[in-house]
């Protein structure tokens, strides 16, 4: 290997190589951390929600004024009847807010009625009727869903808060948090503010809550309640596969046919809700990928420029090397090796920078610590990029004729 003489030659003309090495180092530091963050965001956006997202349509109903309890319940029943009668609809249910919408109730549950129970755990509280399981497309892991008899009604949220139901269905994540021993089904849990008890009658495999940026998004609970006032009323409609778009188009007409004196808004697929929920993550991902692409492009240009400069500067030297017996492949190897040395020097500095940047990100933005496996992958990526960038100039160098050695210009 010719590393030593190439290295000593580089050190004698160190400014250019040093600048390119620093460029590689900065690229590696940003690349590793940005790629790690991107991977985390992608994994976050790719999490299953537990709902039959492909076949869900949701909308909000806004009434003109508050409805009396009985009238409100009757209106909801009429709407749900009309929705279920629509072609392509499998199930429809009323709820007070939509999961992953960044709006809803955070609720505390604990294993005892003790005011200082350390098991107190926050969760997203969702309200559902007897059709909720089917309408959301949830997977019941154990136990059962609510019977019609268990569905309570409340005139408004104040009444709901005063008369909490006696049964609850919780997500697997909440069950595991409250009952690490695995004995959640049939157990009693307590509302942490009123200490009202409720029996866990079912556990759903997964049901993401309201706030996707909350680490506890997987913890959720369903109470069997319908709020009559229409203060916050959403319908969740599940369709047969392939019929969501048609139902989404027709749903407003169907509901306005029941009662035209209200506003229907945000008729959306669940995919749209998901897209809105993760729009910041998506924007961050695109931004970081753009930064990575730009930095890599600048690094490619840096290595390419340095190598091109070196080839042009050393035409006579290359001709001399060829005259002394270097094959074209030897010349290519020489410049690839030179590019590799510069890239590797940058990578060594870059690894330290990447770790430093990660420490700063962890302490400043409370991000997870950089997975060390990103470092060798990043180094490998920059080696490849560096070699590709050096290959063109190296090929050009190999094309220099040995007779260049005897030419005076």
């Amino acid at each position, binding site marked *: 290997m*010719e590393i030593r*003489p190439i290295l*000593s*030659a580089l050190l*004698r*003309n160190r400014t250019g190589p040093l600048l390119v090495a620093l460029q590689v180092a900065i690229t590696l530091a940003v690349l590793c951390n940005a790629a790690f963050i991107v991977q985390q965001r992608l994994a976050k956006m790719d999490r299953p929600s537990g709902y039959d997202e492909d076949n869900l349509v949701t909308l909000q109903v806004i009434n003109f004024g508050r409805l009396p309890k009985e009238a409100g319940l009757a209106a909801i029943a009429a709407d749900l009847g009309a929705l279920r009668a629509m072609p392509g609809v499998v199930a429809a249910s009323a709820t007070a807010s939509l999961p992953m919408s960044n709006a809803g109730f955070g609720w505390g549950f604990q294993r005892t009625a003790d005011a200082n129970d350390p098991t107190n755990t926050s969760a997203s509280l969702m309200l559902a009727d007897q059709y909720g399981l089917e309408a959301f497309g949830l997977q019941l892991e154990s136990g059962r869903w609510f019977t019609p008899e268990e569905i309570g009604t409340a005139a408004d949220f104040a009444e709901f808060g005063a008369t909490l139901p006696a049964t609850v269905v919780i997500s697997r994540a909440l069950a595991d948090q409250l009952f690490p021993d695995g004995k959640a089904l049939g157990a009693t849990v307590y509302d942490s503010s009123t200490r009202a008890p409720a029996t866990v009658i079912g556990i759903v495999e997964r049901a993401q809550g309201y706030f996707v940026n909350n680490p506890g998004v997987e913890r959720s609970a369903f109470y069997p309640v319908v709020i009559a006032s229409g203060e916050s009323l959403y319908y969740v409609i599940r369709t047969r596969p392939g019929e969501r778009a048609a139902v989404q188009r027709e749903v407003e007409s169907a509901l306005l046919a029941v009662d035209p004196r209200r506003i229907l808004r945000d008729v959306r697929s669940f995919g749209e809700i998901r897209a809105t929920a993760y729009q910041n993550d998506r924007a961050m991902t695109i931004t970081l990928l753009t930064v990575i692409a730009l930095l890599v492009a600048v690094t490619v240009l840096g290595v390419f420029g340095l190598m091109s400069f070196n080839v042009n500067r050393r035409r*006579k*030297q290359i001709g*001399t*090397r*060829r*005259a*002394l*017996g*270097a*094959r*074209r*492949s*030897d010349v290519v190897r020489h410049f690839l090796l030179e590019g590799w040395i510069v890239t590797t020097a940058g990578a060594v500095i870059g690894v330290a920078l990447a770790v430093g940047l990660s420490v700063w990100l962890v302490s400043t933005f409370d991000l997870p610590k950089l997975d060390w496996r990103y470092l060798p992958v990043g180094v490998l990526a920059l080696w490849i990029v560096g070699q590709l960038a050096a290959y063109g100039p190296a090929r050009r160098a190999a094309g220099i*004729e*040995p*007779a260049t*050695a*005897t030419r*005076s210009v």
Partner: protein
Amino acid sequence: MLQMKGISKVYRADVVQTSALRDFNLTVDEGEFVAVTGPSGSGKTTFLNIAGLLEAFDAGSYLLDGQDVSRLGDDARSRIRNEKIGFIFQGFNLIADLNVFDNVDVPLRYRGFRAAERAQRIQRALELVGLASRGKHLPSQLSGGQQQRVAIARALAGEPRFLLADEPTGNLDSVMARQVMELLEEINGRGTTIIMVTHDPELARRARRNVHMLDGQVTDFTEFEAAIRVRETRAAAGA
């Protein structure tokens, strides 16, 4: 050792064609010290390039060490250059960023010798040219004569069958030029065939054989000698 018959070389640039060698014939035997002289543009450097396999020719035949080299590929030509030919250039052609040791090492690395053998050869070659103690010096830290001696060491380290020298003293003062010539004579005395291109008649006289070139061909050397004598006579008369 070297046998060229009917070699021709034409350089083409756009619509202009320049015939650098025309029906060029030359035979050099093993152990000879041949000086190739001629005015500028006579084709000396083209001859040297072709003899050293630095460039191809258009017609004719060329046997080097008994091997027809006219149809060899680039790698094979590189190998022959590396193993059989040593080059000494007018401008020394040392690599400025490498020290003396590494400069002499360049052809040996392409030869694939192991580090220990390379070190041994480099040491021997530098001792031969009297620069064994300057291995760590950069070319810029040496005089022109010393640089040319390093170039000679580089040419000799691979123990080539013959040396091709292109105006080896062209960039040196007279004292250094004499030292380099003495070194070349010593190397030739050890059996290495040397072909030296020069336009200096004094140096040419020190070679065992002179070949004069004019318009891409070998001419009768007696004409060249006569021309030199005329010039020297005029110079003496002027003085």
